[in-house]
Every structure is written in structure tokens, then in C-alpha cells.
């Protein structure tokens, strides 16, 4: 006896792939004089110790680079940050401090 055959439909949903602005974000970074690097942290996995090492290496590479510490922003995974517009406000807050690049840590 033949088994019945089933014509089955797809169980997933249409995927939204957000397109970023296709910006060449890193063009001319090397030639910029006013480099300011911000550190954002979830207060986990020794990010503070990583930032110390990175800060030192960056100062060797580009003397005069300025830094903004993670305590300026607090835990970027905390309720008070995520649920109160912290992520949405970040770009403007960073720009107001003249930030040219951001280190986000630590995924583990």
C-alpha cells in the first residue's frame, strides 16, 4: 500500500535584512588628526582589563588619541539603558563627545 503524500508548506517567515547605509566608514581614518575612541561595556569578562591593553596600544600607534571610558555610559545591557532609549540615543551622545570610533565588549 502506498503511503499518502503530503505537500507541505514553509514553516519560516520572510526575512528582513536591514541594509546599512553602505558607508565606507573607515575611509581616511588613518589620516584623521582628532581621534577619539569610546569604550562600551556590559561589565563582563574583564573588558576593563582589555580596554587598558587596547588603550596603551592605540596611544603607541596614534599618540594624541583621546578616550571615553565605559562608565560614561554604564552597562549597555542593563534595563535602564536598553529599555530607556540608551541604544537609540548613543549615536548623538557619542558625536557630542567627538567620538570617531567605538569598542564594544565583551561577547562571550
Amino acid at each position, binding site marked *: 500500500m502506498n503511503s499518502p503524500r*503530503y505537500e507541505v508548506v514553509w514553516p519560516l517567515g520572510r526575512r528582513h*535584512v536591514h541594509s546599512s547605509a553602505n558607508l565606507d566608514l*573607515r575611509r581616511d581614518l588613518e589620516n584623521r588628526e582628532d581621534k577619539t575612541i569610546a569604550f562600551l*561595556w556590559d561589565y563582563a569578562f574583564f573588558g576593563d582589563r582589555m580596554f587598558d*591593553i587596547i588603550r596603551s596600544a*592605540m596611544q603607541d600607534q*596614534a599618540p594624541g588619541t583621546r578616550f571615553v571610558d565605559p562608565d560614561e555610559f554604564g552597562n549597555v545591557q542593563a534595563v535602564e539603558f536598553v529599555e530607556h532609549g540608551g541604544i537609540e540615543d548613543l*549615536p548623538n551622545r557619542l558625536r557630542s563627545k567627538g567620538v570617531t570610533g567605538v569598542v564594544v*565588549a565583551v*561577547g562571550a
Partner: protein
Amino acid sequence: MLRVAVALESAGIPAVAICAEAFAPLGRAIAVSSGAADLPIAEYPGPGLILTDTPQTFERKVRDAVVPTVVEALLGAHPTGAEPPKSAAASREPMDGDEPSPRSVVYSGSIEEVNDYFEQQGWSDGLPVLPPVQRSVDLFLSYTDRDPGEVIGVLPPENREATVWNCAVNGLMAGCEPRYMPVLLAIVEALCDPLFRIYEAGSTPGWEPLVTVSGPVVDEFEFNGGTGVMRVGRRPNATIGRFVRLYMRNVAGLRQSPFVTDQAGIGQSFNVVLAESQTSVQESGWPSVRLSLGYGPADSIVSVQSVRSITPPIYSSGSEPIDHLASILSVLKGTLQSSAHLAYKYGGRQYPLLVMSPAVTRIFADSGWSREQVQGYVADNALMPLDDLEQYLHVAGTTGVSIEQRARSMGLTLKSENGRVLAPMIVDQSSILIVAAGNPGRNQSKGYLDNGPQGSRIVRRIHMNAT
């Protein structure tokens, strides 16, 4: 963390994310699905982990492996003397452009062949699924007035549309009855709430959603709210519980190995639905879940929240509320102690849930204790040494938070006892949900403990409105 980095890159600010090597594939998957495939990811390499490497090894790995990617990404230069790092863009994954349309037939075969095919595609949870054929899906859709194409939300990390249609398809696959459709829709609405943070459902604690159902729908659909309430064995409890995990897998895209988006360290199986039977509520004289959550007696609701750990069965005896609460607290504290730090790390959002047999809640009701009194007693007496809390926080990976400072900023009071400082394990007593369910002939309770803001408790009304 990746979401923050992606948001910055999308806003035109160069960013680099630091990940442990094992999490880099997940990071790339999130970056790709968020349209930031070129996001640089600096990997802390194995073998060895950030929290287990010696300080010397840690420093060497950061200097040799992390720094080059960070410097190139943000300064546009290679560190002096270092080899150019491998570009993150080299690991770009192809964007999908040839996926089926939602209603298209994707396969035809016997039930065994369909199950094999779905498993190969990653569309199954490893258990046999019912074949989702159009006519069966239509039966589910007949139990709602909503447009099958309605997009309820877009679920990360794969950013797929959660629709009325795929809610029906996955409910069918999980073995639900078509008439459960309004319950499934309410659950999907909860999963789509941004506060639920479904994108963090693949985090290492391996938490599982727990659905609690309260209201007339419990008896109408013959949920089990009594003996063995949390066992597989009754169709609505079991299949709707299975549906939740299947939906998260297929629509949010949270798939375990060999896929990369579910990084549960060990994980746990799905929870069956916790049903609060009308009988339990009536027998115990305890306020129903729906009343506790601000709904009316005629409403049916679902509450969806994370469960990270479950207490052992808690037996309690005596005729006074405090007799029972003492036993409940002693076991609850033991299970809660390893996760209580989450409330401090994240700044609140805690959702402890206590299932008590009607025989236990009746003691409170008969003694005139209100829900708030029971919640307050539990919260006031669930304390643990501050230094133990710090230690649990640290071993779980949080290395930059002071519990004492956080307690102060959250307005919590620390107590001293026998030379030790004690901190609250439950920071908001109103978050304690008490559900009267289980064997009415036994004096047993059980605690279901959350994972903080990951899987926050979301409540939705069930709309039984099909015409």
C-alpha cells in the same frame, strides 16, 4: 553587544565588537542579518577561556589577537610590528535571496520523508512533526479573524516575520489542535514584545520560556491544571509548550548546533504550559493569576517569561502561613542564590514564579493573608551574604559590577547579621507570581526562576473572536 555595535555602524559611527572565539560565529550571524556584514569582530582566541586563562595568557591573547583588529578598525592602521589582521569582511556570509514565499509548497513526500526533509533543513525540533499541508493550516486559520498575512512582529536574530500564517503552520507541526489558535497568537504577540528580548534567548544560561494560562480557556480547552500539571501528557499543555520552542527555532532562528544562534551552555527541554485551573482557584480561595496581573475574571490570558532554573519539589506542613513559607524559602533560596546577581547586574527585572498546590494557598487564604503579604514575606526573608552574591556574579562572567554600589543605586537595604552583610535576592516583591496549581491532595510547591530581563514576563489577553 553585537546589537549595539551594529546600531552604531548603521548610524555611521565605526565600531568594533570584541567576542570570545566561540561566540564569533553568532556575532557574525547577527551582524549579517542586521545588514552590517562588514562589522569588524575582534576574537579572543582559544584554546582556553577569558575566565580560565592566566593573567599572562589573557594579556598575550588580547595584545596579539584582539588589538590588531581593533586598531585597524578604528585607527585605520596596523599596530607597529604586527601582522595585518584577517579582515572580518572575509567571513561575510551570503545574503539569502531565494527563499520560498510563505505559502509555497516546499516539499512533497510521505510523512517519514517530510520529517527527514524538515530535519535536514533545520525546521524540526528533533521530534516528529505533523506535515503542514495547506488544508490543515486553513483549519487553524478558521479559529481567528486575523488576516493570515498579518505581520505580528519581526523576530531576531534571523529577523523573520512572525505572522498569523506561520503561527498556524508551526502550531500544526507541534501537534496543537486548530482551536488553540487564539492561544498561539497571544503567545506570539508576547514573543514579539521588545521587552521579551528574544534575541537573547540563545544566551549561555539556556533559559526556556514558560507559558502560564489563566482564565476560562483553561477549562474550555481541557488544560491540565491539577496533578502532574508540568508533565507531558495532556495535549494543550504539551503541544502548546512545544510550539513555543519550535516557533523560536523556525521564526526567530534560534537553532542549536550545528547552527550558531543558540549558544546554551547545557540548556533544558521545553516547558509544558502551566495551566491554572478554575477548580484550583476556587478550592484554594487564592486570587487567580489573571486577577493578580490586572485582568478581569472573564478574561483569558497568557503570561510568557523565561525560566532559568527550577527548584526541587518543596514540601511544607503546618496550619500557619509562616510554617509553609519557612520551608518554601529554605529551598527557594538554595536555587535562587546562583542567579540572584542578575537583578543587580541588569538593574531589576526579576520574575520569580511559585507554583503552590491549592492545599498550600488555602492556608494563606484561610489565614487572611493577601497576595502582597505573601510576596512581602518571601522578598523580605530571601537574603544571602553579599560576598557570596559577588562570587556568583564573578564566576558567571560579570567582572565590573559592585553589588554594594548597585544595591545603593537601586535603593535596596543591606542588613548585617553575625558579622556578614546580607543582600536581598528578590529586589521587587511585586514581581513574585504565585500560581495555584498541581495535585490538590498534596502539600507541595515548586519555584520557577527567571533569567532577568532576558525573557521578561509579558502578558497578553487571548482573543477568542473567530466568527
